[in-house]
């Protein structure tokens, strides 16, 4: 059995499959459920200073197996209310990563300090929600803003800070580099890709908000490219996100340079059992490929010669470490 353990920014995860922010993250019981289903860690819904209802429905449009478009609008009960949910998940044993969103560095820092006091193992900064005015991508598209926000947060907390970056810019890897300069312990990439759906019969956008974010298998190549390019640019660990629905998807991200991955839309397609299945399948896939430890595969697609097809490969092909 291949070893799926992941060491990342001072954390040790039992496997690389992390519940992505915004999925099963409103209630502590659901976070606990994802942990019990086999996730390596869980990320909370993005929490802001005040309770937000989010946008009216429709908030999602589906594309079968290809993915979905959503504009939830950052619904959350607010930072004063949410720690109760974190406590429920922690009592179940889940390593909880607290996600926060703010309008500027000061607000991010305040939220991070508060959520950092709840026993979360790390903080993920939502610098990348593509559809909420004044937050997310709007504050996370410029490297200097990302650097300033990360720096302000890192000053306030003693746990690892993960910057979740947007693909909706011309140069996502510059955002990763900015996060590293600001002191981030890791970068997660990507958030959803900005998108739109129109109902031609009704002659209007489907989502109440109009623009939304595309997730699921349709965006896997986009996420992979971001991780690939960021791997060459930063020294801190990367967490791959975007369209991971199979062990092979996950291993693609790892070979592109990710040490862990986040899974979201696949939960809607397959149910929470996806976590247990992905871990089992990945273990089997690594065995099949002759890779003893997942960590040995991190970034090996960069400059590696072609391995022999379909069989165990020599150790020499698998030695590059990030």
């Amino acid at each position, binding site marked *: 059995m291949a070893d799926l353990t992941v060491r990342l920014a001072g954390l040790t995860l039992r496997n690389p499959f992390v519940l992505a922010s915004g999925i099963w993250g*409103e*209630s502590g*019981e*659901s976070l606990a459920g994802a942990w019990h289903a086999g996730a390596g860690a869980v990320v909370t819904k993005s929490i802001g200073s005040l309770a937000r209802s*989010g946008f009216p429905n429709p908030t999602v449009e589906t594309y079968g197996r290809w993915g979905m478009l959503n504009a939830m609008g950052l*619904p959350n009960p607010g930072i004063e209310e949410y720690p109760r949910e974190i406590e429920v998940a922690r009592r179940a044993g889940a390593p909880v990563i607290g996600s926060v969103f703010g309008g500027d560095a000061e607000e991010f820092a305040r939220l991070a300090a508060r959520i950092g006091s709840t026993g979360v193992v790390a903080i993920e900064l939502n610098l990348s929600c593509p559809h909420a005015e004044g937050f997310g991508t709007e504050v996370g598209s410029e490297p200097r803003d990302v650097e300033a926000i990360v720096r302000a947060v890192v000053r306030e907390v003693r746990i690892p800070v993960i910057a979740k970056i947007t693909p909706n810019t011309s140069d996502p890897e510059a955002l990763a580099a900015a996060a590293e300069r600001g002191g981030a312990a890791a970068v997660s990439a990507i958030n959803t890709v900005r998108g739109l759906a129109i109902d031609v019969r009704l002659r209007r956008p489907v989502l109440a908000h109009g623009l939304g974010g595309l997730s699921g298998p349709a965006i896997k190549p986009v996420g992979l490219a971001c991780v690939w390019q960021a791997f060459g640019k930063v020294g801190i660990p990367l967490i791959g996100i975007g369209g991971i629905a199979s062990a092979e998807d996950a291993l693609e991200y790892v070979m592109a340079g990710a040490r862990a991955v986040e899974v979201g839309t696949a939960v809607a397609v397959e149910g*929470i059992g996806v976590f247990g299945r992905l871990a089992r399948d990945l273990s089997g896939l690594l065995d099949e490929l002759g890779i003893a430890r997942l960590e040995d595969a991190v970034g090996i697609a960069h400059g590696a010669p072609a391995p022999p097809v379909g069989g165990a490969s020599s150790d020499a092909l698998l030695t590059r470490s990030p």
Partner: protein
Amino acid sequence: MRSVVRVSQRVQETPSTVTLRFPFDAKAAPGQFVMLWIPGDDELPMSLSYTEGDSKGVTVKAMGDTSRRIQSVRVGDPVGIRGPYGTRFDVAARNILIVGGGSGAAVLAPAADRARAGRASVTVALGATTRHELLFADRFRAMGARVEVATDDGSEGERGFVTGVASRLLGAGAFDAVWTCGPEVMMRKVIDAAAVRRVPVACAVERHMKCALGMCDACALGPFHVCTDGPVFDAGRLVDVPDFGRYHRDPSGRRVPF
């Protein structure tokens, strides 16, 4: 995938309740719901009150602003439909007690239809604030169900809550299933009453919903998601969920007492 259809019929069922019928040929089962989109307004989870054939229907009680606006939809207006989603009533039982409070009858009526089509015996305990608000009493009677009524004001049937009628019926009959939908406090009482007689209960639960795909967590209820694990639950799974009958979540995810 979403369909856009035109409303084919609008029926004022009671002063506060309206049924909208629309062509929708997806296979559906009693208990399941659709996401009904009123373009330019909102999209809401609505239990199907008509599940058979190509003409489906939902029955909406005027409560919040949005359900009032759904009621203002006219024949010919376009609406979006996605689904059907969720779990169903198991219609294998042979002697069924149905307990409906308020608009809860909307989801119970098609279940009773199917049970009657399978020649099961159906008894209905139906509750409302007043006699004019009794939903689908005639529909239940027309399908050959026995109907017993409770109204808060005593204007028809027993004065008081439908749970009293349900307890009495449970004591008198040998039911092999109870199906219930209504306020959760009511359903908790029905579950307790049925537990004494060891009759299994299925309850249809309502929560705020957004994605309806088991992803966004808006409808989290303990370890469950009402959209995918429900809306119809075996009561045995719900009784130990502390929030059931006590808390729901508002659109921000905040827990709010009933």
